[in-house]
């Protein structure tokens, strides 16, 4: 099986096989990322994997700089720190040259259209564009205009595919029977996404990936931010936190996006925290081995108690590390690389 796509626009359009290919490739990159301490640990634990998990074959380490000589443009027309840095680091680790263009610096502020900006970038012989844009559908629009790969780094409230990939990758690591492997499926895993779902591209991408991987997904939060229309995406919609969190194996918190909520979506941050903030008591309702995830940036004390964010159940920083591996895998595959660590049939 080989990777056939030039663009990564949405997780809605990816097949389960394609998600597996990206995750397998990311696992190989992650090992190269963390070689040293983790490799040493891995060699004592043995890299032989059990038959129930995907074997991550030993010699799969990628070539050191497969994208040497490639020019990747990070076109970030909406503010971003983590995602832009992660794409930047991922591309540089692959040997690519990276040029970052931010909204305020680009010609869009002078009235240039997105089409013109993008065609200019292509004319400068860029090899790929990573785009972050406040308007949903913009990456698809660019993919219809340009012939170079377009990677969606978040489009409005639509999708943030690399975030959905890194989050599900993190879950597959967690549920794997052995360190260093990935759980072949998330079938039946009880995943709760809590917070601002309406405006969240992270939620949408996660929902698509989780459903394809078989997870049992509940979204929960105030009715204004968690509208019933989401049930059409195959998830349970709940406004009852206790019920939703009971025995959940993963809880993913989403940031309350103050900047988008000039519209009165809930009375106050205080009331939100009172009703839906994750604190120790509520965390105790979770499955004992549950993990707590957050795509960042965290509003400590709003959607999550500060202690929980730093506590043993939190995998928040592991998500960040996985974000590099996932973006390396996506850039590698969309720019013509082969799938690494071919999953077992």
């Amino acid at each position, binding site marked *: 099986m080989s990777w056939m796509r030039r663009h990564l626009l949405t997780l*809605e359009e990816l097949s389960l096989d394609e998600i597996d290919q990206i995750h397998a490739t990311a696992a190989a990159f992650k090992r190269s990322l963390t070689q040293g301490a983790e490799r040493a640990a891995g060699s004592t634990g043995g890299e032989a994997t059990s038959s129930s998990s995907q074997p991550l074959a030993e010699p799969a380490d990628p070539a050191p700089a497969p994208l040497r000589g490639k020019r990747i443009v990070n076109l970030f027309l909406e503010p971003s720190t983590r995602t832009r840095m992660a794409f930047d680091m991922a591309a540089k680790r692959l040997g690519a040259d990276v040029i970052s263009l931010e909204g305020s610096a680009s010609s869009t502020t002078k009235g240039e*259209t*997105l*089409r013109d900006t993008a065609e200019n970038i292509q004319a400068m012989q860029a090899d790929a564009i990573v785009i972050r*844009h*406040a*308007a*949903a*559908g*913009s990456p*698809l*629009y660019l993919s219809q205009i340009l012939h170079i790969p377009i990677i969606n780094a978040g*489009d*409005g*409230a*639509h*999708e943030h595919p690399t975030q959905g990939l890194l989050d599900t990758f993190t879950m597959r690591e967690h549920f794997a029977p052995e360190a260093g492997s990935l759980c072949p499926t998330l079938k039946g895993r009880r995943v709760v996404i809590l917070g601002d779902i309406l405006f969240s*591209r992270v939620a*949408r991408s996660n929902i698509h990936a989780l459903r394809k991987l078989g997870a049992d997904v509940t979204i929960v939060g105030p009715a204004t931010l968690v*509208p019933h*229309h*989401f049930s*059409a*995406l195959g998830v349970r919609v709940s406004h009852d936190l206790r019920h939703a969190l009971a025995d959940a194996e993963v809880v993913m918190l989403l940031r309350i996006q103050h900047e988008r909520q000039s*519209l009165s979506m809930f009375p106050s941050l205080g009331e939100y925290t009172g009703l839906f903030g994750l604190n120790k008591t509520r965390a105790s309702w979770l499955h004992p081995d549950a993990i707590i995830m957050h795509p960042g940036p965290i509003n400590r004390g709003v959607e999550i108690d500060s202690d929980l964010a730093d506590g043993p159940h939190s995998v928040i920083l592991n998500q960040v590390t996985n974000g590099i591996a996932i973006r390396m895998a996506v850039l590698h595959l969309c720019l013509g690389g082969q799938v690494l660590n071919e999953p077992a049939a």
Partner: protein
Amino acid sequence: MPTPRRPRPKKPELQTQVLVNTTTPSRSALPPHPASPASSTSPAPSLLWIANARIIDPAAQRDAAGEIFVKDGCFVDSLSAADKAAARKIDAGGLVACPGLIDIQVHLREPGQLHKETIGTGSRAAAAGGFTSVVCMANTTPPGDNPATIQLIHDAIKRDSVIRVYPTGCITVGMKGETLAPIGSLARAGVVAITDDGDCVQSNEIMRRACEYAKMFDLPLLDHCQDHALTAGAVMNEGEVSTRLGLRGWPNAAEDIIVARNIILSLYTGAHVHMQHLTSAYSVELLRAAKARGIRVTGEATPHHIALTDEALGGYNTNFKMNPPLRTEADRQALIAGLKDGTIDAIATDHAPHANYEKDREFDHAPFGILGLETSLPITLSVLHREAGMPLLEVIDLMTRRPAGVLKLHDGAGTLAAGAPADICLFAPDEKWRYETARGFSKSQNSPWDGQELTGRVHTTICAGKVVYDQGRITADAGRSE
């Protein structure tokens, strides 16, 4: 004690009002009814004989093979042998001959937005679509909120239009919803209705006063029913599809609330309020109930809202972006039911041209609106006649006599009655053809049907007895602005 049925106001209602002048010279600039300008200068009478047609005249409940005779721009029952010999004879070859189509909501973009459309190009697109009368909206630059702008539009119509174009005026100054426009002066300048179009009047107080005031001149208020607070930033129907696409939703409730408001104000003031481009199932229900109570309200639906749903937006194609937005299948079915049972009075296109570079943008940033004039008949036939099984005569009624009645355009408008101006559309209801915007007559190309095979084709359009469009070509000599 409420009086559900209010008497139709007599015209003129207020004799003492200086501004009221109900003997306005002509509400439509071209051609002055009943005779066309040409006939007054030309010595030879214009004679037309259409033979071998399937004549559909909803006003007469007529759907039968027959002939049509025209003399001096008007229908006549027969022609003398000498006139027949002199007449231009058109063998319709079995085509349907119906009254020229009437569209009570189009945007011709003149003055001020001539890169999108002009009265010249828009009237040609209309003629190509079988239309002989269109009502143009007042959201031009500057808007039609003063008699001078209306006069400018009348001048352009006289100079450039190949069919009848009826201007509307604004309800409020600058369509800002704050101060009443000089509605009396607009009436005297010859507008057929007042409307703030896309900028629905939000203040119930202003709308109430506009209703009371416009009623003096028997001017209908055309309202684009949209509550702004409920639709801030909205670009498509709110529902499952907007949820999937991550686009800001425009809930049905925002239309329903204003439809209900307008019904209440019409009941309270007796003014005629017309609901433009209805999209919501519950709005249709509200209108049905209001009409049953005898309240003076009417409504229209567009071909695109009865043909398409929000599922069409999956590819973020901006040619499916319009306001109000495409709704769900349930709404679509409710519109069709409303058209079938008479609740909705007319098909109107909301023809809204935009230049390619304006539509070629991120979905959020593209302007609302699509072309409609050149595809209205085939799309409407496909939905109402072939899909929903309405008799051809009833479908044509929704595109001729009934819209004419909503705005009382001119005597005999939308009929083939003797004495009425000879406006005719000849079309083949089952003929398939490929619509290509690049070969169309509008200045713009923003149609969701570009490149598609459509069924139902206009062959010939006749306005005031003159053939203005025939077999793919504009044949009228009026207007050379383009």
